[in-house]
């Protein structure tokens, strides 16, 4: 089992922060939903390094990211299945 980054969209959505999107080593992995105003993770691309956790905790000081075992992620976004989306809000 391995863990991937899971962003609490309530906490992140209450900020104007986008910091972790700039520091994830992987491209197309931490995405940003302009409508919901939150970052979110493509779970199929996350390699579990936890760099984003340090960025959110220590630099952004928002504590919005936790590492969660992949089998406990419910309805994780997978970019390889769904493709790039500017927002996950349905009507868009």
């Amino acid at each position, binding site marked *: 089992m391995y863990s991937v980054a899971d962003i609490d969209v309530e906490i992140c959505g209450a900020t104007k922060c986008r910091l972790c999107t700039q*520091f994830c080593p992987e*491209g*197309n992995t931490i995405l*940003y939903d302009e409508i919901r105003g939150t970052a979110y993770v493509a779970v199929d691309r996350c*390699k*579990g390094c936890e*760099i984003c956790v340090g960025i959110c905790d220590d630099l952004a000081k928002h504590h919005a990211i936790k590492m969660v075992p992949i089998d406990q992620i419910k309805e994780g976004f997978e970019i390889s299945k769904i493709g*790039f989306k*500017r927002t996950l809000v349905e009507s868009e």
Partner: protein
Amino acid sequence: MSLKTINAAPGFQDYLPKEYQDLLEDGPFFKQRKVSELGSFKEVIEEHPMCSGCAMTLFIRLVYLGLPSLEHTVICGTAGCGRLAISQGAVPFIYGNYGDTNAVASGLKRGLDIRFPDTPKDVVVMAGDGGLADIGFHGVMHSWFRKEKFTTIMLDNEVYGNTGGQDSGMTQKGMVMKMAPTGKKFEKMDMLGLAKTAGVAYTARIAPTNPTRVANTVRKAVLIAREVGPTFIQAYTSCNIEYAIPTPKVMDDARDVEKDRYGFVEYFSDDAKAYWEESEKERKRLRKAEKK
């Protein structure tokens, strides 16, 4: 190699892979993207096998953001970890033999200038410290002596990462590595000093701690190479495997090393300085005119 070749033929787009369609619809090709937009557009790098938490991966991701015209750029590289990601980027990539990156880039850049006299075509070499300071050293130096107009980016993880931990010329003296058990015998090579001596127009040393600065430095280096002469970026891109850095600590390491011995420095030749100041003025003027 131009927006025309990136665009799909009419009626054909729906049949292309989803990743390609995403690049056409939301990618970085049709306008320069900023670091602050990351996450809101489709980036050019697809899935690749570089290690989890690799700082080199992050740096490469930021290089693509800094390149001033992706659709008119060719990247040259060689064996080493970086090519694993660079070969998955939607920008033409030429995989040279170990040692000949800067010779390939020289020929390519000259050829492109003859073939496309009215369109600036950028050539960027991006390869490891082993690839550029050791095995490719003569090619790098001579491309600089000849004042070839392209950018060389060294992904300096201070080790041969891809082959399991041999020391390179860029490894620090005394460093013990898996395949250098008695420790590195010599000082880290002064590639920035050599670049200056060889007449490189712009050099920068940088760590990936400030994404905007990385992107801006890459853009600057490529634009100066277009107009003035060779440019060189030496980037600290730690290898967390060979240096046993736990991945959550990779950015702490980058900040520590930056503070200690890898701080941001840049050097301009007189010509490069004059060109850059002039072009900054011009950009300011254009921005003002746009606002009006």
